[in-house]
């Protein structure tokens, strides 16, 4: 791994710890935006530009705004509770198990990894001649996996409908809110 990726990962970890430790939620919400921006940088370095794009737009852009919107409906300070040991143990154990799980995973960028043996070579070899444009990600999303993407759009629409049903109860309230 390149040193710059290590540096970004270090900043990412620091940001995560700071978000968890902060009691001033306004700053924590802003920091989640920075967390997303750092992730986007990391994704770019790992050549996953489309993912980085999404992370930067959604994470650093819209969700930080939504988080602030939520904050303005509640309080800005986290309530001080006493430190409890059981949640810490559960989180620590889960995290440890996840780390343990990564030991079994193939190394990053390993060409012999199972995921690079099946389908992916066909996509890489066939996409440009079959579609006539160079972005394989678009070819996979829109065509090879078109059905999955339809499902994803349905999920997003369902999420929007859910939020509309829960929060924007009736247009009368909206108009009252405008005044």
């Amino acid at each position: 791994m390149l040193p710059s990726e290590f540096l970004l990962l270090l900043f990412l970890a620091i940001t995560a710890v700071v978000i968890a430790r902060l009691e001033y939620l306004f700053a924590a919400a802003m920091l989640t935006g920075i967390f997303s921006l750092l992730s986007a940088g990391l994704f770019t370095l790992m050549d996953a530009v489309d993912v980085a794009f999404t992370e930067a737009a959604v994470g650093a852009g819209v969700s930080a705004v939504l988080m602030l919107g939520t904050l303005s409906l509640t309080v800005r300070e986290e309530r001080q509770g006493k430190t409890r040991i059981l949640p810490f143990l559960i989180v620590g154990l889960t995290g440890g198990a996840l780390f343990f799980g990564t030991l079994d995973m193939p190394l990053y960028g390993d060409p012999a990894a199972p995921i690079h043996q099946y389908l992916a070579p066909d996509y890489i070899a066939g996409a440009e001649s079959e579609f006539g444009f160079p972005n394989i990600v678009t070819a996979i999303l829109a065509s090879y996996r078109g059905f999955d993407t339809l499902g994803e759009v349905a999920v997003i629409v369902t999420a929007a409908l859910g939020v509309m049903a829960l929060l924007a109860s009736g247009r009368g309230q909206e108009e009252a809110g405008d005044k």
Partner: protein
Amino acid sequence: MKISGMRMREKLIVRVIARALIPFILLFGLYVQFHGDFGPGGGFQAGVIFAAGFVLYGLVFSLADLQRVVPWPVVELGVALGLLLYGGVGVASLLLGGNFLDYKVLDSNDAMQGLHLGILLVELGVGLAVSSSMLAIFYAFAGRREAR
């Protein structure tokens, strides 16, 4: 939106910069939408960027100003139309004798043209659905805040 006691609309620098930036954000959104075949990006990213431009307008000015530009019914319509456009392309390819979402049958003369048309329409559907959904969620949150 109220940040640190002072209303955003009273902040001259923020207003002027937002006003100058918003057209470029929207233009960039369109670029990402229609250049997704060649560069990184596509309907999803474009939709979010496009919505972010409007959200910025809503933050700097007010929700009422934003809802004059994009009213609620338009957003609601966009959410449904985006998904409908995507599904509609699938149904259209079914009716033209292909499989569901088989874009090649969309153009009877040139399969490649049909493929490109299908991907363009599908990405447009994704962009419309995503940007409208983002705006709908923002409206829902911000509307509640201003109602209080």
